[in-house]
């Protein structure tokens, strides 16, 4: 696969994984700033190793052993469920019904909670280790799911999805390390909106393919399906804004 094709195929996994890496980075940053960097960095490495084992065993086994059509059907169904969850939440956030994900607020809350725990200077900081390990493992589980989902077609798709996720990890971690503060500039809701539509589209595409449908233009149908999801979701945002009383968005955030 040439680099340009690889980049195109890796983009969905890159964008989707970046959102998860931002959330994990916020927590690791909070631990590092409050309690020192050794324990959270070891926790992060341990969680990364755990995830590598999960992807290497479960992901590769699924992609190589399960028949392609069955795999596409199952992964398509899972992608649709996963994508609908993202899309729904992003629409509710844009409409003002659910509070927008605030990395700064999460960071400050985590700082306060960790400072309250105290720290014995000479011992290994198990709290810092576990908080970082748990955050990276939980967000990383979502990244593993994204890689398996986008790589479900096997071969080059799995390679591209893995490359996309690794690139997102390097990019976000480098940004976090350089800035040493929560990545509030990342437009998380816009990304979740786009990724939700993309995941739903891949879900519909693969599930129908698994049932024997041949899409017109094959994979060229995917952008059309994505646009349909985006258009319907945007109309839903407008509908929700019209439903709420004038100026009620701020109040509705707390509903």
């Amino acid at each position, binding site marked *: 696969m040439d680099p340009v094709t690889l980049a195109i195929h890796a983009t969905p996994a890159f964008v989707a994984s970046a959102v998860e890496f931002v959330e994990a980075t916020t927590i690791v940053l909070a631990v590092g700033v409050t309690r020192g960097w050794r324990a959270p960095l070891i926790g992060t490495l341990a969680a990364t190793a755990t995830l590598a084992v999960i992807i290497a065993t479960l992901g590769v086994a699924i992609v190589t052993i399960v028949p392609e059509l069955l795999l596409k059907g199952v992964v398509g*169904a*899972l992608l*649709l*469920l*996963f994508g*609908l*969850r993202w*899309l*729904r*939440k992003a*629409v*509710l956030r844009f*409409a003002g*019904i659910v509070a927008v994900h605030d990395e700064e607020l999460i960071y400050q809350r985590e700082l306060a909670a960790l400072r309250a725990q105290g720290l014995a200077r000479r011992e290994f900081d198990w709290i810092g280790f576990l908080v970082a390990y*748990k955050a990276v*493992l*939980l967000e990383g*589980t*979502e990244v593993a*799911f994204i890689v398996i989902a986008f790589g479900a077609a096997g071969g080059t798709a799995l390679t591209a999805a893995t490359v996309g996720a690794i690139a997102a990890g390097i990019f976000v971690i480098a940004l976090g390390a350089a800035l040493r503060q929560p990545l509030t500039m990342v437009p998380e809701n816009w990304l979740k909106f786009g990724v939700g539509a993309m995941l*739903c589209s891949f879900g*519909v*595409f693969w*599930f*129908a*393919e698994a*049932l*024997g*449908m*041949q*899409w017109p233009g094959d994979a060229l*149908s995917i952008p059309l*399906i994505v646009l*349909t*999801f985006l258009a*319907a*979701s945007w*109309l*839903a945002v407008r*509908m*929700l804004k019209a*439903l*709420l*009383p004038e100026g*009620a968005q701020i*109040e*509705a955030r707390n*509903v």
Partner: protein
Amino acid sequence: MFKGIWSTLVGLLVEDGQLAIGALAALAITWALANAGGDFARQLIGWLLLILVLMLVVANLYRAGVTARARVSSARR
């Protein structure tokens, strides 16, 4: 820890029970039509699934909007 991972895995797929059940129903309808119908039906199931899912999303969000409006109204009173 394992409880957290398990709840994350479940949470990955199910945030709103009705939306998840609706999506599964749409998938089941599509699967049934693909198996019961002929080749012609099989070439249309993707578009049918797309329409069903879009209707589901809009209906689910409309319900969420109506609930939010009712709560805002009662909070203002």
